[in-house]
């Protein structure tokens, strides 16, 4: 799949809003070199992220969903500039991001990454106060006299109130959810435009996950942040996000309004994910829409990367990579089933008796 259609236009994933998005990525690609020893080996790469174009408007949440290894974290890290893309470019408020040290520093301030593990993202020997005052000082966001007030305001902004209860505590004295809030508050200290949250709740206790998701929801409105929410939990993506992107083997296979992606999934991989997701409202055991595990990204399958697992695979699927095709308002799916020339004349075969023998 490529993000460029036959007519030369590019499909840009993400919430559709008027105006310039806070952060835009064009044709982002990341190939990690595979280390091999001995002479005469061809240079191999891991195709971790392949030609993704994405726009994150302010005051929106975009979810990235997929199984582990699909490239979600690599995409998030590319967006932070923690890793250098193999190709592609980033635009912050419409301006291409420069490579100078100063430009990078400014970028780091404006685009903040929140990690999965709230235990390792805070320094155990420092208090909450230190974690919050340091970025305020570094980025000159507060005068000496203001530091305490500003730090307390940050705690209130992430609902750690009353702030005096938390400000002089150490990370080990906080619960996982509280630590994650401090990690977010630290990001807010420098007034970012974009918050990238990579599985921010998956290590937290079940009952406190929603509190952190609701906080992200509030920050979207109140701070007008452009938020990227990376998760393997498609139900939480539906809950929080405006738009969801489904990734498979380094590519975006479907994107669209989050409820539409879960209520009317158009790509067979999205359908597979949903058929496997826990759902207490289900009355009958689910019928899995496909089997097996994601492929190696060193030698990804030809054509559609999902074809070895796809219950609907056709001859063309092995030959050619499907472009993102419109399936509904603002919803695209990279699947030949949605192309007029390849769509089967009858309805797609049922999951169980799919033809795979081509």
């Amino acid at each position, binding site marked *: 799949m490529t993000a460029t259609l036959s007519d030369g236009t590019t499909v840009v994933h993400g919430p559709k809003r008027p105006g310039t998005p806070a952060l835009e990525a064009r044709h982002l690609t990341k190939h990690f070199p595979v280390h091999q020893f001995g002479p005469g080996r061809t240079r191999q790469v891991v195709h971790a992220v392949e030609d993704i174009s994405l726009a994150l408007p302010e005051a929106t949440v975009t979810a990235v969903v997929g*199984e*582990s290894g699909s490239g979600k974290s690599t995409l998030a890290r590319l967006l932070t500039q923690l890793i250098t893309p193999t190709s592609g470019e980033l635009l912050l408020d419409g301006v291409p991001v420069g490579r100078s040290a100063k430009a990078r520093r400014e970028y780091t301030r404006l685009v903040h990454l929140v990690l999965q593990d709230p235990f390792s993202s805070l320094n155990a020997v420092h208090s909450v106060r230190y974690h919050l005052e340091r970025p305020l000082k570094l980025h000159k966001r507060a005068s000496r006299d203001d530091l305490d007030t500003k730090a307390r305001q940050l705690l209130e902004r992430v609902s750690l109130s009353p702030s005096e209860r938390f400000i002089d505590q150490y990370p080990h004295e906080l619960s996982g959810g*509280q630590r994650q809030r401090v990690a977010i508050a630290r990001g807010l200290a420098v007034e970012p435009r974009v918050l990238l949250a990579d599985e921010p709740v998956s290590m937290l206790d*079940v*009952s406190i996950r929603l509190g952190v998701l609701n906080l992200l929801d509030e920050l979207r409105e109140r701070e007008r942040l452009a938020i990227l929410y990376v998760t393997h939990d498609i*139900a939480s993506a539906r*809950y929080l996000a405006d738009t969801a992107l489904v990734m498979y083997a380094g590519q975006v296979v479907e994107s669209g309004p989050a409820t539409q992606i879960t209520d009317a999934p158009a790509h067979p991989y999205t359908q597979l*994910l949903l058929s496997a997701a*826990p759902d207490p409202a289900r009355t009958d055991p689910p019928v899995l829409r496909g089997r097996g*595990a994601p492929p190696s990204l060193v030698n990804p399958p030809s054509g559609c990367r999902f074809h070895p697992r796809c219950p609907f695979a056709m001859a063309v699927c092995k030959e050619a990579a499907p472009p993102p095709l419109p399936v509904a308002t603002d919803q695209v799916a990279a699947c030949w089933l949605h192309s007029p020339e390849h769509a089967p004349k009858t309805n797609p075969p049922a999951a169980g008796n799919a033809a795979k023998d081509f």
Partner: protein
Amino acid sequence: MSAPTAVPAPRAETADIVLEVRDLCIDYGVGSSAVRAVTDANLTLRRGEVLGLAGESGSGKSTLAYGLTRLLRAPGVISGGEVLFHNRPQNSAFGAAPGEVVPAATEIVDLLGADMAKLREIRWSQLAVVFQSAMHALNPVARIDAQLTDVLKAHRAQMTAEQRRERAVELLRMVGISADRLRSYPHELSGGMRQRVMIAMALALEPQVVIMDEPTTALDVVTQREILEELMQLRERLGFAIIFITHDLSLLIELADSIAIMYAGRIVERAGADELFHAPRHPYSLGLLNSFPALHGEKVRMEGIPGSPPSLTALPGGCAFHPRCPYAMDRCRTDIPQLVPPAADPGRAAGQPRVAACWLQDGFQEPPAPLRRSAVGNNGDSNGARGADETHGSEL
């Protein structure tokens, strides 16, 4: 007001019971430094039943599992209670092995009092365990077929090497591992494959009970679902009962026949899976249900549960949930509620009375609406206990 006393699970209908846990208490440490990790746990498992045990991390699920199989390691000690295993070895679904002793009737074994010889006889062959991390339970330097044939060699001495090998192949095939992976070492397999090997090992001797502690938590949803499908098919075929432990209540409701919810070391509610989903009786169960966003329907703002789970060393007095409970009353801060049938609830889960440990259900006041829904006639509400709860839900 006198506190209702705990009702023991009924002794009468014992025919299909396979495991009973009564008033089990487990501590870490002894003397003044001891902390109680499991308090007065009562469970009844029937033949072929899937009993789900749900709760947040630290609520004592694993401790309970280790305790009732006597696999607890120091400083863990069992400080009270009984675990009764109703031993009734079946004829092998693979064809009875020659020389296998089949007791005439069910023998009730007190697992906590049993000597090591008796435990060895029961553990694995009749009561098997699958733990979360296969990497810790598999031998890293042995090929997987050898690990299986070794189990058979140790417990089924009468089988020939050829029979053992055939059985190993069949077991691995049953859990979806093809013959070409037999010679692999554990590290050469994916996480899902290793978990499948663990399940094959647990089922190798056709136990009557399998205890699974977060067996699929580390896996992707598709792999998780494949493994669960295989597991349920095997249960149909081999008839074992399962205690399935997970923090994922939403998965458990799909999977289990009945569910026990743990909080801070105590079982706070036990009910049929559907009853629990549509008509929870304990505020913590309701809160947990409200912590899993739904895959369908209107987007509704959900709140989860305020605060965070307590530490065992600083358990709140009275009902341990009271600092987080939106319905807490004065008495909740001082008196510990017993696990009893809700006053207004004749409902029975799989032949057992449904029970909840909450003062709201003692009959002296009407429980709040979300905690007195009827489990039946509620089918139009696909979101179960959530969504319909006006006091907790608002448009997102």
